[in-house]
């Protein structure tokens, strides 16, 4: 560590501070300490700042830059894209895909969240009462999280296959009609949503379960002494006390789900037609899904997603502030 040459100004500065520190009177020392710790703060923040600029600010700026220029592939290579202002956004909003994609994003996101949260919460409450094998069982519920997405998405695609899928063979075995899960425009979106719900349950389970650990057991004890049943306990104790954790879980889930590409792409590539195309899929398809990359409209759709996610992010911050103010 010490062998690294540190010819950086801040080190000399700190030496100076070190030299004067012992002799300094308390008041002066305090000021000195402040400035030296400020130096330290800057030093510590620097890697983070560099990281933020490199990996957050620059890509974001680049995304906006892409979306306000007309980046044909030729312009992309030669770097002479024409500035077109908001034309890409106008085209995105005017596209026939836009209303479909927006609606699909809405259905996919809220459908996923509603079921993921409900099932996750139910499981968390279920596992709160520890019983034999409860830990093992709980661990098994994490499997969807551990599987590579390509594996789970392909498995779902096989299971929902129209001709040979296990889901349809069960349905037909009980005398039902074959359902074209992934190839009918009516069910494709539902199918990918189901797969995504399954994928998201572990996340909700884990966070809500840890939230439950923070609710003191005495509260339940007192409640049961007062004669409250399990149902009453859930609505009057668990649910309200879990509210801060729930809010965070749902908001994080929203932001995660908004940008899901992989599951849908593997299962349906957004098809048939545009039937399961969400904004994220649309953006990906424009950029990488065709023989001719269209980075500008893709970036415009991507920015739209960022804005939507930001709205929810601010909502989250507001909620948090309110909670902190009340507590």
């Amino acid at each position, binding site marked *: 560590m010490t062998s690294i040459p540190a010819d950086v100004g801040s080190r000399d500065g700190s030496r100076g*501070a070190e030299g004067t520190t012992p002799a300094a009177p308390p008041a002066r020392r305090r000021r000195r300490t402040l400035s030296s710790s400020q130096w*330290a703060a800057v030093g510590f923040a620097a890697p983070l700042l560099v990281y933020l600029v490199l990996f957050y600010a620059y890509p974001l700026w680049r995304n906006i830059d892409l979306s306000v220029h007309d980046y044909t592939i030729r312009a992309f*290579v*030669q770097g002479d894209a024409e500035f077109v202002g908001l034309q890409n956004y106008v085209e995105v909003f005017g596209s026939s895909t836009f209303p479909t994609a927006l609606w699909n994003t809405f259905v996919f996101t809220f459908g996923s969240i509603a079921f993921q949260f409900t099932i996750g919460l139910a499981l968390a409450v279920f596992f709160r009462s520890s019983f034999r094998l409860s830990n093992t069982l709980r661990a098994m519920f994490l499997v969807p999280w551990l599987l590579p997405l390509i594996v789970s998405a392909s498995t779902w695609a096989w299971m929902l296959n*129209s001709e040979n899928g296990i889901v349809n063979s069960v349905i037909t075995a009980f005398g039902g009609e074959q359902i074209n899960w*992934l190839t009918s*425009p009516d069910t494709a979106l539902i199918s990918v949503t189901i797969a995504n719900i399954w994928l998201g349950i572990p996340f909700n389970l884990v966070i809500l379960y840890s939230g439950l650990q923070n609710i003191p057991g005495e509260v339940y004890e007192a409640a049961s002494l007062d004669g409250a049943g399990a149902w009453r306990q859930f609505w009057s104790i668990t649910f309200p006390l879990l509210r801060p954790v729930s809010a965070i879980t749902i908001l994080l889930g929203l932001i995660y789900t908004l940008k899901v590409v992989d599951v849908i792409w593997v299962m349906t590539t957004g*098809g048939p*037609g545009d039937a399961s195309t969400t904004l994220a899929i649309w953006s990906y398809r424009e950029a990488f899904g065709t023989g001719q990359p269209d980075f500008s409209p893709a970036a415009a759709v991507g920015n739209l997603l960022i804005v939507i996610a930001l709205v929810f992010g601010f909502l989250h911050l507001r909620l948090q502030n309110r909670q902190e103010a009340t507590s």
Partner: protein
Amino acid sequence: MQHTRRKHTTLAASAALAVAGVSVLGACSSDDGSGSSDGASGDAAGGTYTWWDPYPQHDGSSDWEARVQACGEDAGVTIERTAYDTTALTNQALLSAQEGTSPDVILIDNPAVSTLADTGMLTTVEEFGLDTSAIDQNLLDAGVVDGSAYGIPIGANTLSLYYNADVLSDAGVDPASITDWDSLTAALEQVTGAGHKGITFAGIGTEEGSFQFLPWFWGAGADLTDLSSPEAVEALELWTTWLDEGYAPNTVINNSQNTVWEEFLTGDFAFAENGTWQVNSAAEAEFETGIVQLPGKDGGVAPAPTGGEFIVAPVQEDTARYDVTNQIVECMTTPEGFVETANTFAYYIPPTSEGQEALLTESAGDPDLTPWVEAVQNAKGRTSDGLGTDYPLISEALWTAVQNALSGAATPAEALETAQSEAESATS
């Protein structure tokens, strides 16, 4: 006192270290950049030439790698070969061109040639002084933009109709009877009547979907410049009828060409539309297979789209490198070179008649090969007819129409009507 002082010193020192660390990192990465460009110009005299291809299935110990290295040795250099997935390769090529770090040689899927050429990142074959007169015009066309060829096909493959001989004989269908759409549909009716499955193909919403639909589209006499022509509607109606009648499974809407092949290998299907690259796998199937040419609507062989890679040479800052690149390209494109490539990759048909003859003579007694040579001769480039960089846009509209019609979201006529207006607005 002592204690706090110590803490501050440590703090400051760590901060300094952190800053130093970052600047060291920065130095490293800039070193890296200049280092590689230094290396590139330094290597011009001999040394290393970079080569990208879309064959990640052939690793460093493969015959293909050995073949590439042999071409490098002949030119007195080492070739550093990197393999990418087909779609990733186009993106990588564009990125490298933007950064000015293009490889010396790229083997790229033929519809992408015009896309790359349009960016100005490729040299023309003429600039390189290579002779393309021997190359079959229908194959070379895919790489021609505004009259200049930007690459040379190193081989060609295309689509044909595989059949399961056991299923056909069980249903009493003679493959030789399949000469047009009507006889094919009649055969499908007969096969499904006998309790088998009919045909499977790829209707997925990617380039593969368009690739598989084009033989029927062109076989009806339709043209890519008019997606909503009555001929085009007829072609799409052929597919939707097959689905409606149960001759083709509903899964074709999401089938990639690999899935099609897996379905065919189950032995249930009478027919599968697939490519030259499955010949070896077909020979190893647990049932007897054969191929018939994809029929045109009223008979004859439908033009199938050409598949296969072009060898292209991206523009280099250091033009001194072109000499060696030229030798490497030539090594891959002599008649012997073509045959060798064809043998390295099973059934990669040479793009010159000389090469085709040589291949047929060499593999005399291989009856499987002749129909493929015929199919390649009848094939048509997707970016031909002056479509060039418009093709990917038209193709996207086309596969969307196929998806919408097959899934029942729209009638074939409606779907193609929409596709045509989408294609027009995208290419205008």
